[in-house]
């Protein structure tokens, strides 16, 4: 926990700075959307044709911070200033996607035999590397620097809902060195301070810290769903607390957004919650729907997550990270969000 590197501090400063900008533009976005009339225009007084053309050209160029999402499996971006405005679609198809810095990770649509592929793309959407994988795409994360990529696949059982249980595999790629860890389960585990081995171990939902080495994830075994803190270089992880699934570290590194099984029983669904790492106190967020997603942080005060309607349409919602307020629709018809701050 100690020994923050200089890189980490710089990275955290940069994140805090962009978060402040982000917060401001989000507020502008809501002003635009809340006003009745042509939401497509950024200025209500301008002549319609030219105003919308200008806004659209801006969107197409990708001016300003963007939110990267999947629109029914198509890699897309919307403006963070106007998430309900024009959306730019690409030709890339993913079952799950995540972008950070200059890295876009995409888990390709799985085929009937369970084969998928992790594609690492640059912002020009050119593929830098692809890794064949087996399993059903579930979670995907890129560290804030763009260097580290982690994924979770369902290997068997395919979902929590399957009667006979399930199994997952979480892997990590260091895009700088090319080091590939096929399964975090191979790391040396410490549970409550003691070395631990178990055949029923599953790991899912990796989230990286700012130093591109330490990470958090969920490790399940013996009915527990532990929050673990891992060390990529040392190939170890140790338990931090119990009852935490799909952790997502806040930009300032102090809190974990996660899904908490209601009454400790995943069959009853999950409550989106935030854990303070220093005090170990947990607060339930104001979203009352069951959230089965690895949330993202839009800034240090707001988390976003996907919810699926009963007809299979997905929406991205946002809710304050301190349990106050209420959820708000952020991007309709979208899932798998990530903040793509480079604006490239």
């Amino acid at each position: 926990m100690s020994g923050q590197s200089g890189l980490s501090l710089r990275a955290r400063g940069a994140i805090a700075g962009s978060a402040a900008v982000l917060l401001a533009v989000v507020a502008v976005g809501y002003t635009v959307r809340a006003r009745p009339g042509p939401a497509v225009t950024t200025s209500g007084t301008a002549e319609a044709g030219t105003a919308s053309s200008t806004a659209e050209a801006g969107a197409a160029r990708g001016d300003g911070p963007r939110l990267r999402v999947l629109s029914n499996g198509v890699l897309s971006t919307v403006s963070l200033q106007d998430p309900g405005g024009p959306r730019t679609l690409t030709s890339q198809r993913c079952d799950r996607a995540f972008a950070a810095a200059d890295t876009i990770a995409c888990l390709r649509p799985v085929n009937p035999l369970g084969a998928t592929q992790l594609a690492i793309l640059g912002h020009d959407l050119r593929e830098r590397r692809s890794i064949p994988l087996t399993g059903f795409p579930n979670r995907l994360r890129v560290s804030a620097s763009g260097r580290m990529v982690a994924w979770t696949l369902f290997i068997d059982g395919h979902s929590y809902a399957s009667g006979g249980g399930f199994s997952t595999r979480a892997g990590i790629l260091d895009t700088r060195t090319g080091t590939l860890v096929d399964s975090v389960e191979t790391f040396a585990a410490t549970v409550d301070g003691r070395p631990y081995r178990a055949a029923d171990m599953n790991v899912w939902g990796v989230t990286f810290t700012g130093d591109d080495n330490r990470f958090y994830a969920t490790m399940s075994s013996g009915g527990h769903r532990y929050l673990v803190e891992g060390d990529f270089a040392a190939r170890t992880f140790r338990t931090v607390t119990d009852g935490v699934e799909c952790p997502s570290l806040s930009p300032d590194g102090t809190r974990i957004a996660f899904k908490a099984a209601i009454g400790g029983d995943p069959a009853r669904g999950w409550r989106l919650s935030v854990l303070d790492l220093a005090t170990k106190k947990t607060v339930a967020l104001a979203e009352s729907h069951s959230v089965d997603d690895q949330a993202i942080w839009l800034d240090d005060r707001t988390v976003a997550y996907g919810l699926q309607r009963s007809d299979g349409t997905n929406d991205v919602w946002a809710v304050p990270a301190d349990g106050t307020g209420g959820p708000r629709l952020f991007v309709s018809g979208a899932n798998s969000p990530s903040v793509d701050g480079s604006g490239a």
Partner: protein
Amino acid sequence: MFRRKIAIAIALVAASVTTVGVVGVFGDASVAYAATTTLTPVADTYTDNSLATTNYGTSGQLGVDNSPIKRMYLRFNVSGLTAVSGAKLRIHTDDVSGAESNSGGTFTSMSNTTWSETGVIWNNQPAVDGTTLGSLGAVVRNAWYEIDVSSYVKGNGVFSIGVTSSSTDGADYDSRESGSTAPQLVITTGTSPTPTPTPTAPAGDPVLVGAGDIASSGTGDTATAALLDGIPGTVFTAGDEAYPDGSASNFSSYYAPTWGRFKSRTRPVAGNHEYVTPGASAHYNYFGSAAGDPAKGYYSYNLGSWHVVALNSNCSSVGGCNAGSAQEKWLRSDLAANAKACTFAYWHHPRFTSGSNHAPDPSVGPLVQALYDNNADVIVTGHNHQYERFAPMNPSGQLDNARGLRHFVIGTGGAGLYSFGTILPNSEVRNNNTFGVVKFTLHSNSYTWQFVPQAGKTFTDSGTTACH
């Protein structure tokens, strides 16, 4: 919470807004009345050839133009109405300078009714390929305009309208996101006697009712069995009858106390969970001759004017499903010998599905091709635990209203429900929060489907399609 409430309100409005009734002449056999129902679009967007990868599905504005080329798309869902006698599309120009134009555009019906509001861009635009419904001349800003679409909207259904323009001076309209000036479909009903209740089958038409993915330690199977208590007819299963292993004890513990009540009128097919027990032996032992030859698991029978084919999609267990396999050859000869007007087929693994847990399975493609080649009508599968209905499609999954088969995934028999993944083209209706069965009423030259939900749930889906 505020924004969520808005979203819900819009959804309700879309379902059905206002019914303004003008009721006349009571106490007479020929009660006549006219009423209008106003619907807002369930989806609307436009595309722009100068920004060919940009989607405007959530925008508050719709544009139609010829320079750059902008095309508008509107979709309405009409349900629950009887005696539709007319329909008008009403659209409102934006209250901004430049919204006006010397041409408001040409309005045309579209065959594609499943385009995605947040997925349509110029580069993948649905074809505006139907009949011209009307055109608007010059339009001014901030005004309503009407197009008579009675020739297209003649009853319940899903309707897509495309708008194009040959003018280089574009028009801008308000989209469904704009609120009170959203496009409207104003439907007139009436001039007929008292509304007919939901169409019921003429007495004697056979019923085929069932689902897949059924009995487990949970309670969903109990809920769907209770539905079948009240629905006479032949029961089908679409596989995965008894979880987790299709073992004799799974059948006796879970299936027998629920769907087992209908065993004597059930014609099953085995799913992958039955084949966890080698040869699906417990499935074949439990159902006996009703399940067909245990070495094959495929068979056919007739119901009224329908031929019904039960197939085995556990391909590796029966020598494959490929062209030239024993099952495919049997299917082709069975269909060739069939003299019935309509054909219904069912098995476990879906050729087309938007479910996230199991991808569409091309291994059953040769069976789909054989059915298509022989003018079959309906395919029912399960495997993904949810309900999904597709438009009639050819074996490649393309819309084919002339010869296509309507595919259903009915994995709602009781096992825990699954999420959806990427929604496939031509997927018309989906639900994953309701257990239920689908009742197919097999008319002499058409079929009616009805999703019957578990007690306490409201999702339903019904319709009628003619046989080929």
